[in-house]
């Protein structure tokens, strides 16, 4: 029971973590992408469509990344090059993605999409470690995307804090006009962050379809992209803390299944609402000491 909960927690945390790390890079460059929800949904759909068409999970992952890149590029053109309001552009992206995935889904699979299933990512058992009591299945018997999402945490940290690129990126998010004056190329940095985030968010979406649902449902990202935004705030824009925050929200999501299985008499909607309530409570408790990059969300027009 507890073992299943822990395992489920890690599995639920993985897509949140992938998306949050992507969003972290984008936000460190000074751009806030509310459209991450739509990018994730697009990734989820593309993964399912490609995996269904080809029967290959790898093709699903690849297509998810590509489709998410396209969505991120649309956002990048608006938010970076045209310097429009990032919140509104991100929201438009969410609405757009909901519509586009819906149209394609119904066109390809009909309104109900009944009995539509795809192969899922294989669970990989890491030798005898996976037999450890309690934490074995949670940490060492997951699919490759779960391992990947946790392994890139130190990679993101290294990139941000131990490379010149990461420093340039943070400078662009701190004071873009000064970064440009130093010849760092703010637009280029922001695009690079958006593209990496696109791939990560696309994989995160793919995880929803290929990782556990093994089907697609319209609007199935169900606010996970928005939760990733909150995770970045809660994680104070640090990769390690973001990983911890992701696990916390993963637990909130996992709790639904555990508690639904046990008949507690508590309405299940309460558990479904739990991650969202948790987001509100946690942000309120943080009380607004902001660790956000200084230029976050401010459109930058090169002089």
């Amino acid at each position: 029971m507890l073992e299943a909960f822990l395992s489920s927690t890690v599995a639920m945390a993985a897509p949140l973590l992938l998306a949050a790390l992507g969003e972290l890079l984008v936000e460190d460059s000074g751009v806030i992408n509310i459209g991450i929800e739509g990018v994730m949904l697009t990734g989820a759909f593309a993964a399912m469509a490609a995996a269904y068409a080809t029967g290959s999970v790898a093709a699903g992952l690849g297509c998810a990344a590509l489709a998410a890149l396209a969505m991120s590029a649309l956002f990048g053109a608006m938010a970076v090059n045209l310097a429009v309001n990032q919140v509104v552009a991100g929201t438009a992206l969410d609405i757009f993605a909901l519509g586009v995935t819906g149209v394609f889904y119904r066109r390809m699979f009909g309104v109900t999409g009944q009995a539509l299933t795809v192969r899922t990512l294989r669970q990989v058992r890491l030798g005898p470690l996976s037999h450890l009591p309690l934490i074995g299945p949670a940490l060492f018997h997951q699919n490759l995307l779960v391992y990947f999402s946790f392994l890139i945490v130190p990679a993101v940290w290294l990139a941000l804090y131990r490379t010149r690129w990461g420093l340039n990126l943070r400078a662009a998010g701190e004071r873009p006009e000064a970064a440009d004056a130093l010849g760092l190329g703010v637009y280029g940095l922001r695009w690079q962050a958006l593209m990496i985030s696109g791939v990560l968010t696309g994989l995160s979406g793919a995880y929803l379809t290929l990782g556990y649902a093994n089907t697609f449902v319209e609007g199935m990202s169900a606010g996970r992209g928005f939760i990733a935004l909150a995770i970045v705030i809660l994680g104070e824009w640090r990769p390690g803390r973001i990983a911890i925050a992701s696990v916390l929200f993963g637990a909130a999501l996992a709790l639904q299944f555990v508690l639904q299985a046990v008949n507690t008499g508590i309405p299940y909607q309460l558990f479904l609402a739990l991650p969202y309530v948790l987001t509100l409570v946690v942000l309120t408790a943080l009380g607004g000491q902001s660790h956000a990059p200084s230029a976050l969300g401010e459109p930058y027009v090169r002089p």
Partner: protein
Amino acid sequence: MPTATSSGSRGNIVAALGKPLGALAIALGIVALALAVLGANPAATFAALLSGAFGNWLAATDTLVKATPLVFTGLAVSAAFSGALWNIGAEGQLLFGALAAAACGVHLAQWPRPPAIAVVLGAGTAAGAVAGALCGWLRARFAVSEIISTIMLNFIAVQALSWAVHGPLMEPSRAYPVSQALPPAACLYRFLPPSRLNAGMIAALALAPACYVWLFYTNAGFELRALGKNPRAAAFFGVPVGRVAVFAMGLSGAMAGLGGAVQLSAISHRLFERFSPGWGYEAIAVALVARLNPLAVVPSALLFGALDNGAQAIQRAQGVSPVLVQAAQGLVIFVLLAFDTPVLASWRRRGAVREDLASGRADA
């Protein structure tokens, strides 16, 4: 000699209409292209859309019915966005409004009609106001981004609604997850049956100018707009930033909540899951096309109401999913944003008469 630039809200009519209609045209052009790629006939699809929206008397009145909640949520978004309060939560506020209206309404069977309706609409308004003001307060007091908090409340509202129709408000036979119907006393007046024209539309039409007057003619509206245009200056000159945020978010939520109550009381009479097809999100497109001008929200909502209504028809006629309209909404917002890009403005400025930039840059 510097020249005054006309504002979107008060420029001449051609200029004011040009951008939104142009954006719509471009967005629909892209949709047509996508339809062709998908193998549907764009012309036939648009024809079906148009006839679905205005093809006959009933269809036309139904377009008005579909536009009504969009007027309420569109006004909600316009008011909040005017103060740079990014209320993405009109959806949740509308649902909370409908939920409160239903919870009160079912108990009013014995009441005379006018007070019963007043209670139902009042409950919806109050619930929406509380949901909105809560986010304003969280922002003012705890610096919680209203973007995140309003989005979270949207999801919470969906679950609350689901719980209500599976639990306390479930219809007596308990066979379907829908609420018990409102008693006739709590239902808004309808006109000219079989059309579903109703008194809620009159309320929507009256609310738009009221909102306009509030925003552009009152001190509170001025303070909100000042906050939206330049929060630092507003704070420096004593605009009570926190109070304005709470009040404006409350007002915004109230209008969305009223929209939910009107929809319940005039049209659906029952609550059910997916009560709103996304009116709160669509409202963002409605408000932006109206350039945040409350008076322009009415025609803008009509436009989107027509799209929604026509979209039902294209499914039948062309096998194209009505969610296409959502993709179009997103596109309309993108195109509108692109029209207003500051980058374009700075290109234009190179030839234009603008002393301000020169003085700002040439100052040593």
